[in-house]
């Protein structure tokens, strides 16, 4: 029985109204067909291609064009986009706010990318903050967070989180010795800052729908950092314990909130961590292959049980 036949049956039985029937039957037939997603992809690709071309042109022709012209063009684009964003934006609200127009989010995206381009150009040509490149990233992250919260834009929030991660990375790169361990500590600090920040903002009700973005990024950075600690030759016990705790927390969070991405993170990261410990120093082929068979089947059994109890498609 097709969906259309079922809908007709439900209408005849009075389970859905004639209006609902007309609407749902239309949706099932693809009438009208929404091109919302396709047009958004086109806009995203357009902005990305434009900024990539802009960057390529600036880096190739900056000598011939001259600093004044390059900075004028970049600043004009920035100013025009800022004017558009501030003149069209609805009044600010702590709750989720729809974009005033379909192109609005992409204008903001253009602002963010052009800003990064212009900053890079200025530093490259004039070395205003010579040796303190990380301050640019911190300022950029600050601007992106402001734009993301002012205009309710996840794209720019992701850019902000990415810039902040870059700032942490560059800050630690000033230390030459023991970089790996230092990177790990800074990654944990980043996770702590972003995770707590995201949780606090959600708790106080400031754009609480952004919390998912924070959580996904924090989870992945945290797992990578912990795994890199598990991979070291000595002193990995604490990192392994932390990995187990983080995976347990991720699993619990995923099951309680029915966000199965976190269940998947927990399964994959804990498997990699445990496998790296089990196989450390093992050279016997039978033991290695046997481990993968046993562990793979064990993971399957556990995941099937989880799937049976919790994992129906949402």
């Amino acid at each position, binding site marked *: 029985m097709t969906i259309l036949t079922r809908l007709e049956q439900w209408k005849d039985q009075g389970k859905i109204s004639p209006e609902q029937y007309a609407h749902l039957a239309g949706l099932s037939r693809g009438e009208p067909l929404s091109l919302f997603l396709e047009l958004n992809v086109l806009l995203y690709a357009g*902005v990305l291609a434009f900024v990539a071309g802009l960057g390529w042109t600036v880096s190739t022709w900056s000598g011939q064009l001259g600093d004044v012209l390059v900075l004028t063009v970049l600043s004009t684009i920035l100013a025009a986009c800022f004017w558009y964003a501030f003149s069209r934006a609805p009044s600010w609200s702590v709750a989720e706010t729809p974009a005033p127009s379909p192109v609005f989010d992409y204008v903001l995206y253009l602002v963010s990318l052009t800003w990064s381009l212009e900053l890079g150009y200025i530093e490259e040509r004039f070395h205003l903050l010579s040796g303190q490149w990380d301050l640019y*990233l911190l300022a950029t992250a600050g601007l992106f967070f402001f734009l993301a919260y002012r205009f309710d834009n996840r794209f720019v929030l992701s850019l902000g989180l990415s810039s902040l991660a870059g700032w942490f*990375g560059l800050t630690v790169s000033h230390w030459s010795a023991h970089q790996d361990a230092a990177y790990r500590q800074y990654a944990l600090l980043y996770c702590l800052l972003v995770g707590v920040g995201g949780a606090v903002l959600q708790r106080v009700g400031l754009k609480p729908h952004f919390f998912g973005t924070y959580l996904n990024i924090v989870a992945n950075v945290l797992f990578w950092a912990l795994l890199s600690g598990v991979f070291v030759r000595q002193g990995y016990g604490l990192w392994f314990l932390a990995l187990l705790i983080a995976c347990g927390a991720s699993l619990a969070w995923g099951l309680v909130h029915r966000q199965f991405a976190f*269940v998947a993170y927990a399964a994959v990261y804990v498997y990699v961590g445990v496998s790296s410990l089990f196989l450390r120093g093992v050279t016997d082929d039978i033991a290695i292959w046997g481990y993968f068979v046993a562990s793979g089947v064990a993971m399957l059994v556990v995941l099937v049980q989880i799937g049976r109890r919790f994992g129906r498609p949402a």
Partner: protein
Amino acid sequence: MRLYCASSEETLRTRKLLTEWVGDGFLTKEQYQLLEKETVSELRTTNIFLRLVLFLFTLISVGAAAGLFFVVFLSRPLEQTAGVFYLIFAGVCYAAAEVAVCQARLYRYGIEEALAVCSVGFLYAGMQSALFIGRPYSPTQFLVPAAGAVFSLRIWRRFGFFYAFLAAMIFLIFLPGYWTSSLEAQHLIVAVFYATGLGVVASIRTRHRFDYLDEDYSLVEALLWLGIYLVMNLQLSLLNLPAQWWGGTGAPEFGRPFYWGTWVLIWCLPPIVLARGVRQKDRFVIAVGAIVATLTLISNKPYLGWHRNTWDPMLLGIWLTGIAVFIRRWLARGPGGIRHGFTAARLSGKDKHWMNVGSTVFGQLSPQSITPAPQPSSPDLRFGGGQTGGGGAGGDF
């Protein structure tokens, strides 16, 4: 032919739509609970994340089991012996996939998918090892990719995995290389294969316009259109890629009539694909039409041997943005925001969900390619050389 009965798959589709509709507010919770009871399916499904993880761990288990078998029972087997065992593994994996569906009623569960994928891999490796490795070149070697293609098609028909169809298309690319050394003939043969498939799919899918198979056929048709385009576009061709990757050779030479014929074709195909997609109201075909139109714009200059300018991507970006804005405004000006059965409005919460996922993922990825690098030590150096990520740092400014 198909392992799942039509009513089960149709019920599952109905259930999925009900979940979407109640999320979008088109049905009340009470209605949903009432209708849900009438759409109980015996098929066992799971969500996308568990599906992916189950797929991964099944691959690990099957691969490791094969490795363990060789280590325990055959320490240094001959290629032919190993090939025979690969073929046995292929049979075992395929049988296990069928059992997983028939007995456990798994449907897009990851496990049966990985088993089916492993069976194709083992079949390919087994035929290659058992029949041809260590022997002089034989023209019958085409049987290996041919068997891969046929077996992948069978899996697509039996299980409905679209990526099995894609695998069959990829296997077909290798076939003409065994039959002729002429690159032009190879391109034409692959294009004829795909065009034949397109004709068959187009004729079959008219019978499934509004049922559960429509989306499957839509995806397959879109893949075939994309395949034809990629084979005929000599600047991007699928056929040249393996040679360029492994052989390190430059672009091959083609006869002028063939070369310019394909140039005409890459301009003709996008409007044809788009027209077909719009007429059929087929989302996947429309998407492929847009992709091939963009690829034509990108590859036109190399085709003509013209110099590529640094500002070309800017023009492309302006063009893409302009087209998107124009279509959206044109549709929005229609009565009720609808023209010819199309709308630019968001009708489903699913679209919003995908937008949120996309903005998080692409927001993280895109700055890497266009944002500035850390300052180099010498002021004379030009841009480039950064290694850290982030909104303000990338490797190639």
